Each structure stands twice: as structure tokens, then as C-alpha cells.
């Protein structure tokens, strides 16, 4: 099955969780990413229970922040 991850096509054998997909997509620190599945935000608490299926579009971005001190 085919999904799109951050604008790039990705082949996966079967439906997997968002948590598993982040591993496949080599997100280095998944606890610090924000995810949209088909344009809808997925809470961190739902990463393991939310399934990515054929044709889905997943976007993930790293948290970006910091401080001057």
C-alpha cells in the first residue's frame, strides 16, 4: 500500500500505527514531532492507536522552539 509522508511517496506492506510510521520514516525523536493525518492533528497520546491506511497523507514536523538564555 502507498502512503504519502511529508510529500514523498512511501510503500508499506500493511496498515500501521502513526507511531510505527514515524520509525519507518526515521523521525529521530518522535516524542518531539507534531503529526497531521489527512490534514487533522493527531495527539501524541493517539500515536499508537491511530492507524495509517492505504492512500493516507501524513505530515510530521519537529517541534521548533528555544530560548535566549
Amino acid at each position: 500500500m502507498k502512503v504519502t509522508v511529508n510529500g514523498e511517496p512511501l510503500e508499506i506492506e500493511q496498515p500501521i500505527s502513526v507511531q510505527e510510521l514515524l520509525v519507518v520514516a526515521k523521525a529521530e525523536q518522535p516524542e518531539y514531532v507534531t503529526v497531521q493525518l489527512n490534514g487533522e492533528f493527531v495527539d501524541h497520546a493517539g500515536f499508537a492507536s491511530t492507524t495509517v491506511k492505504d492512500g493516507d497523507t501524513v505530515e510530521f514536523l519537529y517541534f521548533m522552539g528555544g530560548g535566549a538564555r
Partner: protein
Amino acid sequence: MVIHLTLEDYLALVRHARTVAPIEDCGLLGGIVEDGAKVVKKVFYLTNTDHSEEHFSLDPKEQFAAVKELRAQGWQLLGNWHSHPASPSRPSEEDKRLAFDRQASYFILSLAGGEPVLNSYHIDKDKIATKEDLHIGTY
């Protein structure tokens, strides 16, 4: 890594950060990678959801919207930027701790002192910051 930013974008960045000061200003950098160099095509101005003089966090909704826009142009997310209204243009310990994207360039614009100073850094997985070769001007 060499990274190019137009003078026009640099001046706009400084103007915007001065307007937002003393709150830290922040955003994203969209562009292309060409001949091994990053070329900034657009500076995105995002909301600092911390509304703080010493901290910043980019708004996730605005991040996704900016990435959607830059991807539609055929560009990549090259990195992000933020201002230090009253401290030097170098990554703080918190900047390094919260730098999770190994591919990103981290622009830091200092408004401390008389003249603004803009530097770009790469921050590796060991949190070592390396200054990048930032060229401001025509490309």
C-alpha cells in the same frame, strides 16, 4: 554548508524582529538546495506562541501551513529562525536542547547592541553547534 539569503529578505527580517521586540520573533525558511548550497526563497513569519522575551515556540498550525505553501512552490523546508532581542547571535543551551532537526539551518538574529547580527548554525545530535557560511546579498 553555504546558505544564501537576499539582502531584501535580510532587511525585512530585521525590520520585523525590531517591530516584535522585546518579544522573540520567529519563523521558517523555505527554499532550494542547489549545487550543495541552500538558497532561501522565502522567509516565513510565524507566531511565537510563548509571547516571551526569552523563549519561543512556533505555532504548529502555522508551521504546517507554511510547509504546505513552500512545497506547492517546489521548495524545501531549509530551517527556522528566531531573534535574540537582547543577547548575542549564538544558540543558547535551550536552543541546542530543543534542536531536533538535523537537516535544518538555525538562523539567530541578535538585536543586542548597535547593529543587528545574523548567523546560521547547524546543530548535530550531540548538540554541537557549527556556524554555517551565510551569504547575504544577490545570488
